[in-house]
Structure formats: structure tokens, C-alpha cells
């Protein structure tokens, strides 16, 4: 069963229509990679799915409930966000909180969990991303890769139905990308449902189960990851894969 189903979503910024009737569905356990050149609407799609942007129209079905995009009541937005998690390109760790506090914040403040229990759960999450020993560090005392792993721990800890990743490695120095991708690969292997906007072709090819290719605010091609890379149907996809060297991986 689809955990997330977006249908006919449209979104404009001024005169530019960034999303032109896009539909997408994510099954439980899917790892869906959204690929495409910059400006193709990938990030906007992800942000609309979590209400960071308000879509102009379309429907969103999440966990069996249906919502008319652009008209979702505030309390539903808050309720839905508690079932999801979001990993940002620039990590966006709370700068005034330690790694541990970053991870517990959503548990204690948003979900009312007791502090000592939250600390235990959060330490497990930090251990999972290999940063238990950095629990008391502030974001500015961590490398980019470490910050992003804390952000992933923060996303994991609430046991979300789906985790959205918005270009999680794009802001990282090349030598730090591997540690973040390794964590994401482990989550995929555990059966986490993930929707990942990425430029990492190796991740899309080897980790994701499905690939969606967007260009100019539309989905050009989508399908099983293997078929997508081995036998892309659309010329635009082939051209894209050529330019980024995605073929022959």
C-alpha cells in the first residue's frame, strides 16, 4: 500500500510554474530517488509534500488520509509532520542545542516524551549514525558530515513513516559524502521508507528501489531503479545520464 500518494500537484512561484501536474506514489519500504537537473522542481516537490511550501492545487494521500493541497488545516499539517521527517541540504541543526538536544527536541517538545526516556532513545539514534561520542557537541563543533548524520539521527528518532531527504550530500566536501551515504544505505537496508532528492548517481542506482526523473516541473520518466539506469526510455534522461556520467556505473 502506498504510504504517500501525490496527485496532480501544481505550484507556481510568481509567473514560473515549478510543478506542472506532478503525480508520485511511494510504497512502504520504497527508497525513491528523485533525479533531474537543477531547477527541475525536485526540491519544491519534496517541500510541498511536507508543507514547507504550500502547493497551489493537487491532492496528497498520506497513510490512508486524503488532503486537498493548498487547503490543509494547520492542525493536520502539524499532525502529518509528526509522522514524517526531513533532512535538509544544509543540515539545519538547531545551533543553540547540542547534538543530543537536537535529537531529543522533537521527542520532548513536540511529542511530550519524558526527558530521560528521550535521552536514551536519542543516544541509540546517535549511536546508529556513529556519533554517540559527539552527543554533547554543538553543531559548529562538528564537521559537515557529522552534522548531517546528527540530522539523520534527529529524523530517525521519531520513527517516521517516511523520511524526506533534500540533496543531503550536496553541501558536503567530497571526502565527507561517503559517511552520510553509508548511513542512508543502512537505513534503506532496514526497510525505511525514503524519498530522496539527490545528485548521487551511485546512491540512486545501487540503493534506491525506484527512480523518478524530473525536468522543467514535470516527471519525465520513472520506474524501477535498475531498468531506469540500464534502459532509459526518454532521450532527455539518456542525455542527463551522459552528462553526469551515470551510464556505465
Amino acid at each position, binding site marked *: 500500500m502506498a504510504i504517500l500518494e501525490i496527485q496532480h500537484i501544481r505550484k507556481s512561484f510568481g509567473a514560473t510554474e515549478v510543478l506542472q501536474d506532478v503525480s508520485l506514489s511511494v510504497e512502504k519500504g520504497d527508497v525513491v530517488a528523485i533525479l533531474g537537473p537543477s531547477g527541475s522542481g525536485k526540491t519544491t516537490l519534496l517541500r510541498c509534500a511536507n508543507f*514547507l511550501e504550500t502547493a497551489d492545487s493537487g491532492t496528497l494521500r498520506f497513510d490512508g488520509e486524503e488532503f486537498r493541497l493548498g487547503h490543509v488545516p494547520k492542525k493536520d499539517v*502539524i499532525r502529518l*509532520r509528526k509522522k514524517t*521527517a*526531513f533532512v535538509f541540504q544544509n543540515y539545519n541543526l538547531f545551533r*543553540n542545542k547540542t547534538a543530543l538536544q537536537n535529537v531529543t527536541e*522533537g521527542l520532548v517538545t513536540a511529542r511530550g516524551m519524558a526527558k530521560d526516556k528521550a535521552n536514551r532513545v536519542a543516544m541509540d539514534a546517535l549511536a546508529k549514525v556513529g556519533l554517540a561520542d559527539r552527543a554533547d557537541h*554543538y553543531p559548529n563543533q562538528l564537521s559537515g558530515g557529522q552534522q548531517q548524520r546528527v540530522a539523520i539521527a534527529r529524523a530517525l528518532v521519531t520513527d517516521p513513516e517516511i523520511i524526506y531527504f533534500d540533496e543531503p550530500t550536496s553541501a558536503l566536501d567530497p571526502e565527507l559524502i561517503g559517511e552520510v551515504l553509508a548511513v542512508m544505505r543502512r537505513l534503506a537496508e532496514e526497510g525505511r521508507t525514503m524519498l530522496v532528492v539527490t545528485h548521487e548517481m551511485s546512491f540512486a542506482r545501487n540503493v534506491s528501489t525506484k527512480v523518478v526523473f524530473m525536468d522543467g516541473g514535470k516527471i519525465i520518466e520513472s520506474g524501477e531503479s535498475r531498468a531506469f539506469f540500464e534502459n532509459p526510455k526518454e532521450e532527455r534522461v539518456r542525455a542527463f545520464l551522459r552528462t553526469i556520467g551515470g551510464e556505465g556505473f
Partner: protein
Amino acid sequence: MTFERAWEVVSESFLQVLTAGMLYTVPLTVISFALAMVIATLAALAQYAQIRPLRPILRFYIWIFRGTPILVQLFVVFYGLPNIGIILDPFPSAILVFALNTGAYCAETMRAALESVPRGQIEAGYCVGMRYMQIMRRIVLPQALRTAFPSLMNSMIGLVKDTSLASCITVAEMLMATQKVIGRTYAALPMYLEVGFIYLIFSTVLTKLQSVGEKRLNSYGHH
């Protein structure tokens, strides 16, 4: 005036002037500044959150209090308001004016500091399931306060010195105590230097507090 005479006047009056400082200058500063912070924070938050009907009112308030001399504001409240039947004692009048005046300046400091917190901090708060007010209280305000802290301390140091203006509306603060001694002894130069020295001590204490505060706030580092 001989040096001995000057020294005698200064040493005899020192405690008297310092006492006026402790009884009036310090409370005037502390109470006014505390109120100013409340005003500034609320005014800054209301503008930041774009509560539309409040905005013109707040801009007007800030415009008035930043655009006119404190001395005029003190006179309006203490000597002017009785014309329309509002009679306040000197001390509360001074508190009112200093709180509103400093509040207007600090509101701008706080607003700029709030706006300097990156949008992504708020989005991250939403994405972990927090509500707007929770995000403001736990994420945005603490970061903004840290950014604003040095400027706010500057305003407080300015306020200590501005409280001397309250002598003009008969508050018996340090400058007035000094003038009383001068009226009796004619030792103007030593006495004004003395009161200046005490103001200097007060500002120096605040400057020290500022650097201690900044160090503590820096425990989560620079960014």
C-alpha cells in the same frame, strides 16, 4: 580652592553620592531596563511574526521615542501630563520614560537579531513536529538573544548614564545629590569629577558583566 579642601569635600560626600546611586540610579536602571526588555521583545516578536494591525502602532511608537530627546520625553510626562490630569511621581515618571525609550531602541536590536536567525532553523523545527510558538521560544529567541546581547548591553550602559537626566524632574539620583553638595560647598570641579568617576565604575561593572555574559553565551561557539 586648595587640594586639601577639595579632597575633604570629595571624601566626605563620597558615601552620600554613592548612596544616591544605590538608592536611585541603580534601581532606575535595573527596573527600566527590565521593562524595556519586555517591551522590546514583545514589539520585536510582533513585527517578526507580522501581526499586521500592530505593525503601524509599533513603528509609530519607535519613531516617536527614537526621534525625540529623552529630556523632552521626561518633561512631557512629568510637567506636561498634569495638564490633562495625569500626575505621576518623579520616580515612576522616570521609569516610564526610560523603559519606553530604551525599549524602542532595543526593539530594533531584537528585531534585527530575530531576522538574522536563518529560515532553516524554523523549518527544521516544523519538521520535527514543533509548533510556531515552541520554535520561537526554544530555537529562534535564544539564538536572537545571543546575537543581540552585546547591543543590548550597550543600551544598558547608555541607560545608566541617561538616568542622570532624571535629576531634571526632581528624582534624587546621583547627579542631584552631587549638585546639593556643590550648592553647599561650591566645590564644583571635584564633585562633578567624583560623580563622573562613580558613573564610570557603574559602566565598568556592566562592561565586565557584558564580557562574562558573552563568554558564557559563546559556550556553543561561533557561527
